């Protein structure tokens, strides 16, 4: 399939290791991880605190450098790219959702969402229209001119979701997207992600410690001590 690794998957990791040198000791955050994520899959990475979930996410997305191994995204070996190449690749091919939303507080909602389009080089008017459209799709049509501080946590996360999708990425990486939300809002956000996944066939890689979130995905990968323990399909709720 076009855009996929030599083997299968839109996201492929082989023998991925990541070590942190703290000066006194070397921490092995990832120990030879192998992972395939199929196109259009909604996958969760779960495990106890400190097991390497976020590190794995960061390495897969190119936000963090790897110690050894290889990573392909949409058939491109990002582990061999320079910093600028990885950065440009992220702008074109990936979307990100963070636990703390990481919206720019100084920009309005619509300006936050259109930012990735401007980074990619889209015409400002087109970027603005795309942002409006995606905000309408996530139910925030009336909030476009507000600043993030004027929104609730759930609304801010919707904005973050809209931002992650505005460039029609190949993969969306989400790090604890519901970590700062209450259960009701968590359910709303997950439902939104599921509906977008269904409608647009997006690939989601979600790091979470919330079993509810894990249950909502198509596959759960369990980690412990920097390695994948098992991978399974969650039972439908």
């Amino acid at each position, binding site marked *: 399939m076009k855009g996929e690794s030599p083997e299968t998957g839109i996201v492929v990791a082989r023998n991925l290791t990541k070590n942190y040198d703290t000066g006194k000791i070397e921490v092995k955050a990832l120990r030879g991880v192998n992972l395939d994520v199929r196109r259009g899959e909604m996958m969760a990475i779960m495990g106890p605190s400190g097991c390497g979930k976020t590190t794995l996410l*960061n390495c897969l*997305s190119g936000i963090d450098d790897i110690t050894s191994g290889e990573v392909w995204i949409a058939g491109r070996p990002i582990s061999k790219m320079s910093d600028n190449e990885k950065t440009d690749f*992220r702008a074109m091919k990936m979307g990100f959702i963070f636990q703390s939303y*990481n919206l720019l507080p100084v920009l309005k909602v619509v300006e936050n969402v259109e930012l990735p389009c401007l980074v990619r080089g889209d015409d400002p008017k087109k970027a603005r229209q795309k942002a409006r459209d995606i905000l309408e799709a996530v139910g925030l049509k009336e909030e476009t001119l507000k600043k993030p501080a004027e929104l609730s946590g759930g609304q801010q996360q919707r904005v973050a979701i809209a931002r992650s999708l505005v460039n029609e990425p190949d993969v969306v990486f989400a790090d604890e997207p519901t970590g700062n939300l209450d259960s009701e809002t968590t359910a709303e956000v997950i439902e939104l992600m599921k509906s977008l996944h269904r409608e647009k066939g997006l690939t989601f890689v979600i790091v979470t410690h919330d079993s509810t979130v894990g249950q909502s995905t198509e596959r759960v990968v369990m980690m412990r001590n920097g390695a994948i323990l098992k991978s399974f399909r969650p039972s439908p709720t």
Partner: protein
Amino acid sequence: MDAAITLLLVVAVICAIILVWTGRKRFPLRIGLGNFFRRKTQVAIVVAGLLIGTAIISSSFVISTTFDHTIKSEVYRTLDYVDEEVYSAGPDGRLINFSYSAFDEMNAHVRDMPHVSAMAPRYQLSASIIDTRSILFEPSGSVIGFDPALDLGSFVKSGGSSWDGSGLSPTQVILNQQIADSIEARVDDPLVIYFGLSYPVPQFNATVGEIVQNTGRGAWAGLPAVFMPLNVLQAAIGQPGQINLIVVANVGGPTAGYLDSTAASQELRQYLPATPLLTVYEIKSDLINRATQSMSQLSQLFTLLGTFTIIAGVLLIVNIFVMLAEERKGEMGVARAVGMRRRNLVQSYVAEGLLYALLSAAVGALVGLALAGVILWAFEAVYPARLLGGIRFVLTWTAADLIQAFTIGFLITMATILLASWRVSKLNIVRAIRDIPEPVQRRSTGRQIGLGVALMVLGAISTISAFAASSALLLDVGPVLVAMGLAVVVMRVVNPRIAFSAAGLFIVIYLLFPFKPIEMAGAGIDQFIVAGLLLVLGGLLIVLFNSDAMLAIFTTVARRRTWRPVMRTAIAYPMNKKFRTGITLASIALVMFTIATMSGIESMVSSTIETTEARESGGFDIIAATNPAIPKSTWNSEYVNTSVSKNISEYHGLSWVSFQFSKDSTFSGKLQNTTLHGMPATWTNIPFDFQALDSKYSNGKEAWDAIQANSSLAILDGSVAPQEFVSINAMFGASVGDTLYFHNGKGEVHNFTVIGILYERFVNGVFVGWNTVKTEFGVDYPSFFYFKVAPGQDSAAVSHELERTFIRYQMVTLDMNALIHDVLQVVIGVFNLLEAYLALGLIVGIAGLGVITMRNVVERRTETGALRALGFRRSMVLRSYLFELSFIALTGILLGDILGIAISYDLYLGFFQGEASFIIPWDRLLILSLIAFIGALIATASPAIRASRIPPAEALRTFE
């Protein structure tokens, strides 16, 4: 020194109070002190920014001490032991002879004058001296006849030994080094001395017996002088037994005796002989007071202009402490949550601030010493010693200067820290802990409306008072307060952007409007400072509340893919923190405003050179004066036979006499001394223009003709009109229509009516017809001349030739154009010096930017990580920071430049129109702006580069 110790005690007491107050519960003090020592680099940068204000204050004190010491040293040198003079002077100011017996009579009572140490007789007169070996001459020398046995102090020979001046032969004279250098005299050189007496001029042939140093008795009055025994001089001028001066020394010596001049003068007056009518003059005390006054005005100017930098420094303190608070918002919120009171928060900040204040004030005081040295070096470059009579400034300072500066700097810093700490303590606990930004305020609160109303009332009172007191300053402040108050009030119902933009626009337009109901004439520098502050405030409001419009412009202009998102973030961030951004903008804009205004004024002054030359000189190249007045016929016959006359195309000789007048017909109050000039009737086309003319006369020629025809009419020089920027030789004020009452040579009371005032200010005095001077004072000969050099001739050479030709008459010449040029160059040099001084304030602005950048990098760490994840390259992150800083720096610089140029134009309309051209000094402004901008970039590049290099994963990890 007592005052300095008192100030140190004040500082110590304040420190003790703070330590006790903050240390009562210990933990606020520990927190405060701990925070100070936590980040040494940050402390260093903060202290560097804070110390500037103290450095400015310290340098002002040191400069003042240096000027004071230099002036006094010069007076001590030139007057030596002489504290008072006793003499008799005629109405023209010349010394009148009196009998030696008057000296004997007074000297007999020295023991009865407890404050008087000794006195000595002298005969002093002007003379021109020629060294017939070197063929060089000095037209404006002095001859002093002294008694070696009685005279005060002593000469100092070239080898350094003291000498009373005795042992000279009847034809030997003593030269001081000053005149010896002037005529390149050596011991045994033959001299010809022409004494400054009435025509025919007596001549004396002498030889140089000794050349003495310009110190001790030889430095007398700073004059190029020849000394000879009194009896020899009396014989040479045919005045046996006559003197014209008694010099007096007080108890206490050359440097302290003058402090008792008042008492000594009273004692001297007690024993003055009945006749002749002698005057006691406190020469040393008077010279020191006058010189000190002039110099203190200059040092005050430095201090006042330094106010802008001090204000910028205060703004920086506020900015720094507010940012430090924001940095620790989380821990402060937790501290408040677990029971720390607001007061304890204030205490912790004040404790930390105490260290900043002590350190920055101490370092600042010392830096100010170095700064004063630099300023004095620059001052000497502007004012070469030759223009100051050979005076050289030597850096002089006292411990009291540094202590005073330290104390004032400390107090200003502590007061600002207290205010900032109080503001900072008012945080919301939940928002602080959860790092939720403060809600954007869209409407005025009740308290703010109250404040707005108070401002409006204050503004109204100020405006009304302005009319009552004719105060241009209050008229500036009043309406501005009303506008600000109104903006705060209407914000209840109107969008803040509209309210404050309107207020800002009103402030700028109102302050720049050139036509105000109250005259700006005589406006002082304090009004300039206030107007500058308010203008910058108005400009800031417009900029800060209209950032969206600027953002739209920049984003439209940016075409390249990677620039649009960079600009979006670069402008949004500073505009979101209006307080922080506003303060930094203000400190940069304030300094650039003053520099731009100074540059504008300097350009206008420079442009006046041509006009000034024409107006002052009337097209003539040289003015000259002779000491003995030469009979007209003698002058005419001598002049035409000289070779120098062939190098002169036109000349006119005026008569003159010193006289006194009063504007009061009863002569009560102080009499004004000035010069009465008799204009020759043959001078029919007098080129000097009028700035004010009686409406009876349609042009200047009619006025000049009128003073010839009517002996009760007079024309005055331009110094009598109000001066704005450059005060030249102003002796008294007058207007067209004024009447001047005087006693003529026969003691009769007559008067002049002023029919015109000239532009020309160089030659001071009252201009009347030739016959008027002849009739009133019996003077019928020229002694003041205007010469026009023939085409192709050099003015300097012709001047010298005139002096040489008429050395007998002690003709002294002045090259007008060269002198005017010199004066204007000095004025421009002073402007340059002041601009450089003001530019120091840019350091404050740049320090502010540096602190902001460091804070921004930390605050936005996670956001930077998010941007990198979204696709911002490292270079884009760097560009975003640099563009943001450039935006703030350039906005501040441009705002200051634009407002400075605008107010320069106002000043042009008010004071320079008609005399100067309005020129915008583009090159100077560009250079200064570029230096400021580059400085800002250098100060902020390092943290910006570090921010761009943080790996995204590391940045996304939440930490503090």
